[in-house]
């Protein structure tokens, strides 16, 4: 087995330490300003990366992040794992039973909140390819990608906002959370299909891949879940706690990830679906969920978010026109879609607007999606930067806008 040289190890450790330290500082600042930690962590990456540090201290930047290919490769492996783990907890967060118990309004809000932004995201590049600098043969795939990238709501951001506003337990809060969960699930299904269209190294043909993707999804949510329900009580009883359930769930998460990667639909999809199946099981205790969340959110997530800024220069790739276009279609699609869905299920106009603003928060998932599309050559760096900015702006504005919509309601004479 190859191993890292003395210098590589030092460089890798320095990288990790710097990334975690700076991410923590900015996450704390973001929280003081009542913003999600993710926002701070992404900014930390932009500052450590070519955008800021690369400009003001190019030698130091070069030494830390560019000079050592072996350490870079090792870091890339760690970041890959971080992405898989992020998707795993995104899956854990989806609680199907909550969705079913919220009934029709959640389904209506989430479907409209998915379809409308998808249509907006799809049609804009499809009819105005010039705006995105697209060629004819890439147009279809790109439009599909854009539709998906605009339609996934950031569940953790939404939950945090709802908790802060004391709305989590209200009917509206539960409907938003359930809506965002359905969003997640369907959004990733669509994306996995797009990934197989991109046809990255896989062992199967296109139709087979789509078929097997759907089969795998159904399998995970029925038989997979059933198996977990059989295995978990045993692990809880016989193995160390929480050690047993933690290492086993990680192991199976990686197994599922390896399987979907082999299929050619990317590792993250397997991790996500395994997360959904595990999270929906009756026997995974809430305490175990909390522990899994904590260590991924605070160690792996910051590494991933910082790594985005390290890869790309946000200044030279910043295209104001593009950013504005993406912002407009993302705001319009989500607010109209989810808002109309809420309105249709009997919410007042103001409440429906608040639901729309809440569902508008985008975050990690868009960025992960964008990164994969970037790595596969589907989008360029300018579009990726615009997507990251969109995720930041929508996440940062969700809480103030919701407050505004609900306050307006309070001012009205009843």
């Amino acid at each position, binding site marked *: 087995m190859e191993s890292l040289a003395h210098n590589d190890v030092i460089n890798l450790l320095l990288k990790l330490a710097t990334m975690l330290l700076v991410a923590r500082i900015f*996450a704390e600042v973001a*929280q003081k300003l009542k913003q999600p*930690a993710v926002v701070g962590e992404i900014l930390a990456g932009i500052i450590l990366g070519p955008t800021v540090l690369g400009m003001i201290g190019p030698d130091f930047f070069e030494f830390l992040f560019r000079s050592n290919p072996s350490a870079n490769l090792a870091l890339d492996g760690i970041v890959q794992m971080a992405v898989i783990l992020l998707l795993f907890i995104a899956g*854990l*967060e989806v*609680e*199907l*039973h*909550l969705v*079913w*118990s919220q009934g029709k309004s959640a389904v209506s809000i989430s479907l409209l909140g998915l379809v409308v932004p998808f249509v907006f995201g799809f049609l804009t590049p499809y009819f105005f390819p010039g705006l995105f600098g697209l060629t004819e043969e890439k147009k279809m795939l790109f439009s599909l990608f854009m539709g998906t990238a605009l339609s996934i709501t950031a569940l*953790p951001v939404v*939950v*945090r906002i709802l*908790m802060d506003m004391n709305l*989590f*337990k209200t009917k509206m809060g*539960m409907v938003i*959370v359930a809506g965002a969960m359905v969003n997640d699930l369907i959004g990733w299904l669509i994306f996995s299909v797009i990934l197989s269209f991109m046809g990255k190294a896989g062992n199967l043909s296109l139709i087979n891949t789509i078929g097997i993707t759907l089969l795998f999804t159904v399998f995970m949510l029925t038989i997979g879940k059933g198996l977990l329900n059989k295995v978990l009580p045993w692990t809880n009883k016989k193995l160390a706690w929480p050690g047993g359930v933690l290492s086993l769930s990680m192991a199976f998460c990686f197994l599922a990830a390896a399987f979907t990667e082999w299929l050619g639909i990317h590792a993250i999809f397997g991790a996500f679906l395994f997360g959904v199946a595990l999270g929906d099981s*009756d026997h995974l*205790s*809430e*305490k*175990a*969920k*909390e522990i899994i*969340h*904590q260590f991924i*959110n*605070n160690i792996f997530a910051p590494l991933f978010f910082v790594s985005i800024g390290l890869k790309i220069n946000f200044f030279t790739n910043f295209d104001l026109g593009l950013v504005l276009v993406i912002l407009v279609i993302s705001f319009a699609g989500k607010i109209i879609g989810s808002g109309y869905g809420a309105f249709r299920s009997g919410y007042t106009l103001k409440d429906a607007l608040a639901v729309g603003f809440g569902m508008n928060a985008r975050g990690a998932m868009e960025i992960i999606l964008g990164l994969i599309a970037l790595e596969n050559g589907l989008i360029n760096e300018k579009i990726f930067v615009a997507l990251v900015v969109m995720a930041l702006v929508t996440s940062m504005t969700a809480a103030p806008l919701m407050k505004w919509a609900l306050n307006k309601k309070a001012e009205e004479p009843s």
Partner: protein
Amino acid sequence: MYRKLALAIAFSPRMEALIAEARKLIQIFEGELILIHVGTKTPELEAQLSEVLSRHCGDLQRIKTIWKEGKPTKTILKTCEEEKVDLLVLGALKKEGLLTYYLGSVARKVIRKSTCSVLTLIEPKIETTHFSKVVINGTELEITPRVIARGLKFCQAEQSSQVHILNEIKLYGFQMATAGEGTEAEVANTRRKLVQEEINYVQGILDSLEPTNLKINIKVTAGKWAVELVRFCESIEADLLIMGDEQGLSFIDRLFPHDLEGVLEVLPCNLLIVK
């Protein structure tokens, strides 16, 4: 509280025990009893029934037996509606096989579709059951205030010795992980707040009701409430679980189990569904 009780009978070995149990409830609620049998009326069955009735309900004035033919579930439900029954009593097996679970047994179909309250007994006894340890579902749902009010009345009539009201914290792990972005004190505070909110919810309902002399214990759990209810009932060996009902359950709900479905899958103890 329950003026008109109906008992669905099937001439099974447990029939006598069920009749004895219904007889006891009639005594508590001072109501009338209607026996419903779906099937052909034969002299043998009639004789068998009257023999059992004379043993347990000899002194009962207001008792009526209805014999009807047709599909069991539909006929039972229709008769209950026609007779304006308040409480339907039936026997059920503790656990259904996988096949009957998906296709539905009579008892579980009736529980799902009945418009009146249903008391399901898993182990009816000739010497009758005393519902001493009772668990009430206090999860925040529209019907919960009514379930608690009716449940406590039932417990009072039955003179239960312990009443536990269970409420859950929704998505506890996820909420705590999100709160984990704060300092240690903030996290501890959130944890306390989450628990306190759930206690306050149940306490608020209790305060709005007339005081009882029952020993009531409010318990907060985290996780799926149906699963937690079942676990709690099993751990304290409860005699009765009281919960509300979600309307309009269909086959889909059995594929993606709802909360009520979770309880119906394996009945932890006797079950009273308040409608």
